[in-house]
C-alpha cells in the first residue's frame, strides 16, 4: 500500500475493444454503413434475379425520379437529427411551398417569382420552427407536429379544392426526363450534389463538427464557444428552404399542384434517415449512410412494384429495416445484459 503505486493510471490499450467509440470515419464505415452496402447489393441482386429488366438504366432513372424529393428532404433532416432535434414538418413544408407557388402562379405571377416566393416561405416556416425550438425552448417534436398541421393547413386555405396546372412545359419536363445523355434524373442529380455538400459540411467542416458536438453533448458544445441556438435556428431554416425547394421540384415533376401534395411523407423521410444509421438522439450518423438508405429503399420499392408485389409488403419491409437498424447495434449489448442478469440471479 505504498503511495507510489500507479493504481489509477488507465491501461488504455485494451479499452478500444470495450468502448464502442466513433473514432475514425473509416471505422464507422465498418459498422452500419457496410451492412447497408450489403443490403443494397442484396436488393439489386434480388431485383435483377426477379426481373431481367431491373438493372437497365431506365430503371435507375425511375428510382432517381421517384425518390428525388424524399431524398432531398432527408439531407437537412439528417443534419437536424444530428443535433438531437427533429423536424416532422418537412412534408407539410413541401406541400406549402407547392401551394404558394401554385397560388401565386395561378394569380398571374411569373413562374420564377412564384418559385422565389415559395423559397421565401420555406425560410420563414423554417425560422418559425427554429425560433420556437431554440429561442423559446420548446421540444422540437411538439413544435414540428404543430407546424406540420399549420403549414398543411395554410396550404389548404390557399389552394383547396383547386388543382393548379399549366406550368411552363420547359420547366416541368425536367421532372420527368433524364439529364440529356444520361439516365440520371434531375432531382437525383440535385440530391447527389446536395449530398456531397452535406457530407463535406457534416464530416469536414467546423460547422459539421459543431453539429456532432451539439448532438452528443449540447452543454459541452456551448462551453466550447459553439453557438448552439443560432446553429439550430439556421438548421431549421435550412430544412425549411430545402423542403420548399423539394416542393418546387415536386410541383414541376407533377406539372400540377394541389394542397395535399406529399401528405404523410414526413414519416418516410424520418424512416430513411434513421435507417441510414443516424441516431435519433443525435451526434451519430453519416451522410453516406443516408444516401445508401435512399438507394436501398428506392431499389426495393422499384423491384417490388415491378414484380407486382402488393404495396403493403413495401411498408412491412421499411418497418422491418427500420427496426433492425436500431436493434442490431444494440443487440450485442442487450444479449450481454440478459446474460449478466441471468448470472446475477443464479
Amino acid at each position, binding site marked *: 500500500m505504498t503511495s507510489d503505486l500507479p493504481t489509477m493510471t488507465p491501461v*488504455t490499450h485494451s479499452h478500444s475493444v470495450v*468502448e464502442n467509440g*466513433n473514432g475514425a470515419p473509416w471505422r464507422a464505415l465498418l459498422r452500419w454503413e457496410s451492412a447497408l452496402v450489403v443490403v443494397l447489393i442484396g436488393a439489386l441482386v434480388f431485383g435483377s434475379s426477379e426481373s431481367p429488366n431491373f438493372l437497365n438504366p431506365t430503371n435507375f432513372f425511375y428510382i432517381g425520379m421517384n425518390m428525388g424529393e424524399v431524398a432531398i428532404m432527408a439531407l437537412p433532416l439528417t443534419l437536424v437529427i444530428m443535433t438531437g432535434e427533429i423536424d416532422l414538418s418537412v412534408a407539410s413544408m413541401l406541400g406549402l411551398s407547392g401551394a404558394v407557388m401554385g397560388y401565386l402562379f395561378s394569380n398571374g405571377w411569373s413562374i420564377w417569382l412564384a418559385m422565389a416566393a415559395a423559397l421565401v416561405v420555406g425560410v420563414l416556416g423554417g425560422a418559425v420552427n427554429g425560433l420556437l425550438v431554440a429561442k423559446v425552448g420548446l421540444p422540437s417534436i411538439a413544435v414540428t407536429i404543430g407546424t406540420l398541421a399549420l403549414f398543411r393547413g395554410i396550404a389548404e386555405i390557399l389552394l383547396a379544392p383547386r388543382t393548379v396546372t399549366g406550368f411552363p412545359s420547359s420547366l416541368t419536363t425536367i421532372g420527368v426526363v433524364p439529364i440529356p445523355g444520361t439516365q440520371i434524373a434531375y432531382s437525383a442529380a440535385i440530391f447527389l450534389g446536395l449530398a456531397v455538400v452535406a457530407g463535406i459540411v457534416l464530416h469536414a467542416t467546423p460547422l459539421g463538427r459543431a453539429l*456532432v458536438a451539439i448532438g452528443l453533448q449540447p*452543454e*459541452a458544445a456551448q462551453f*466550447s464557444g459553439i453557438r448552439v441556438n443560432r446553429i439550430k435556428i439556421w438548421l431549421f431554416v435550412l430544412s425549411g428552404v430545402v423542403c420548399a425547394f423539394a416542393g418546387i421540384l415536386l410541383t414541376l415533376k407533377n406539372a400540377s399542384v394541389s394542397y395535399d401534395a406529399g401528405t404523410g411523407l414526413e414519416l418516410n423521410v424520418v424512416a430513411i434517415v434513421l435507417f441510414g444509421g443516424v441516431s435519433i438522439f443525435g451526434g451519430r450518423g453519416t451522410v453516406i449512410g443516408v444516401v445508401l438508405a435512399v438507394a436501398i429503399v428506392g431499389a426495393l420499392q422499384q423491384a417490388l412494384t415491378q414484380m407486382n408485389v402488393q404495396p403493403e409488403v413495401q411498408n412491412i419491409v421499411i418497418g422491418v429495416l427500420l427496426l433492425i437498424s436500431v436493434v442490431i447495434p444494440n443487440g450485442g449489448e442487450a444479449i450481454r445484459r440478459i446474460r449478466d442478469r441471468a448470472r446475477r440471479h443464479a
Partner: protein
Amino acid sequence: MTDQRSAPPVLVLDHATKRFGAVRALEDGSITLYPGEAHALLGENGAGKSTLVKILAGVYGADSGELLIGGEPVTFNGPGASRAAGVSIIYQEPTLFPDLSVAENIFMGRQPLGVGRRIDRAAMNRAATEIFARLGVQLDPSRVARGLSVADQQIVEIAKALSFNAQVLVMDEPTAALTTVEVGRLFEVIRTLRAQGAAVLFITHRIEEAFASCQRVTIMRDGSFVRTAPIEEVTVEDIIRSMVGRDLDALFPKTPAAPGEVVLDVEHLCRDGVFYDISFQVRRGEIVALAGLVGAGRTEVARAVFGIDRRTSGTVRVRGEALPNGKPLAAMNAGVALVPEDRRQQGLVMEMSIDQNVALASLRRLRRFGLIWRSRERELATTWATRLQLRFSRMGNTVSTLSGGNQQKVVLGKWLARNPSLLIIDEPTRGIDVGTKAEVHRLLDSLVVDGLAVLMISSELLEVLGMADRVIVLREGRIAADLTRAEADEDSIMRAATGQSPAAAA
C-alpha cells in the same frame, strides 16, 4: 460509546476491489462500522470513497472482497437489496424526481398504503412532516421538488434516508451545500440516530467536521484503505499526511506571484436571483480564487463572465475591452478560456475522440479552404498531449476511455491551444488522483509564471490556500471577503463563507 464499540460490528467491508475496464477505481476498500458510532471516511477526491459508497449501496458489485452485514456475508444485486439490508445512502448529488412531490420523493416505491392498496397521501405527507420535524426543518411535503434549492434537495435526500430507519446511514458529502445552521442541525440528527443505535458513515472533505461529530475516522488514498483510528488519537496534520501521502508543498508548488496589468475587470456584475454586485480584478501572473460554499454563486459568476449565462447588469472587461452580454464566442476571441466544473457534461464531448476534443475550441483556426484537415487536428492534439504529458493509447479513442486526470488535461489542452490570456478554471482537480493533481497544480503555476491570469474556483480549502494569490469569498451571491494570500487561512475563509463575524465566533 465505548461499550457499544465492543458490540459486534453492524457492517464490515473487507478488501473490496472494483475495476472499470482497465481503470482500478477501488484497490482495497475496507471499513468496519459499529452500531451507535459516527464514522468519518476521509480521502482526496479520487481516493475511492464514492466507489466504496456505491458498493455499499448495491449500485456496483465488488469484483472481489467481502461484505458482512450483522456478521452475515451478503451480495447486493441492486440498490433495493442494499436498502432492504438496512443500508441507506445519501448521495453527493441529489437524485430527486423533479416532477414529484417532496413527500413522494421520500417514499418513492414504498408510499404508505391505505384501503385497497392505494397510496394514502395524507399519511405520506404526515410521515414526511414528521421526518422534517426530526430534522428541524419546515418544508411543504406536497410541493413538487422542481425548483428546490440545493440545500433543500439535500434535506429531502436526508429525509429519504431517515425514512428507512436504517441501521447504517451513509452520507456522501452531505454538508457540501449546507449553511452552518443546517450543518449544525444535521449533526444533531446524526446524534439522534446514533442514540437509536444506528451507524453513520460520514464522508466529507472538511476535516474539522470529522472532529466535530465523529468517533472514529477511516482514511483512504488512491483507492486503498490507509488506516482507521479513534478521532482522539489523530491530529489534523496526521490526517492530511495520510490522505495526501506526501508533503503539502509537493502538492501545491507555488511560485511567488508578480502580478502585471489587469486582464479581467468585473464591475458590479449582477444576475437577478443568483448573485449581486460582484466586482473584482484578475491580473497577469496571478491566481485569484473564488471561494465559498457550494451554492454561493461562484460557478454562476464564472458562467456569466464567460457569457454562458446572461448578466442582468454590470460590465466585464478583458484587457480593457468590454465583453458583450451572453456571448461565449466573443469572450473566447477576447482571450478568455473556461475549464468548467462538470467535465463530463460541459468540458468534454465524451463520445468524441481525444484529438477532436482538443481541437473543438480551435476549429476555426484549423480551417484551410474552409475544411478541417484531420492531419492538422491530429498535429495540434499531439502537440498538447505531449506538453501536458497526456497518458493515452490512441488519439482516435473517445475521451471517455481516459482517467479523470487525463480527461482534465484534455480540457486544459483544448483551451491552452487557443493561447488565452485569462483562464477561468472551476474545480481544477475534482475527481483527479493525487499524482495528476500535483501535475495540474504545477502546470497552473508555470502558466501563471508565463503571464497567464487565472481565476480559480475551488471547494478544497487546501487548494485555495496552496495556489491562490488572492481569495475572494462569496456568500449567498455576494462578496463576503477579499483576502490577500497572507490574510487567507482556513479560519478567515470559512468564517466569511458561512457569515460568522469573528466576534460571533468568539
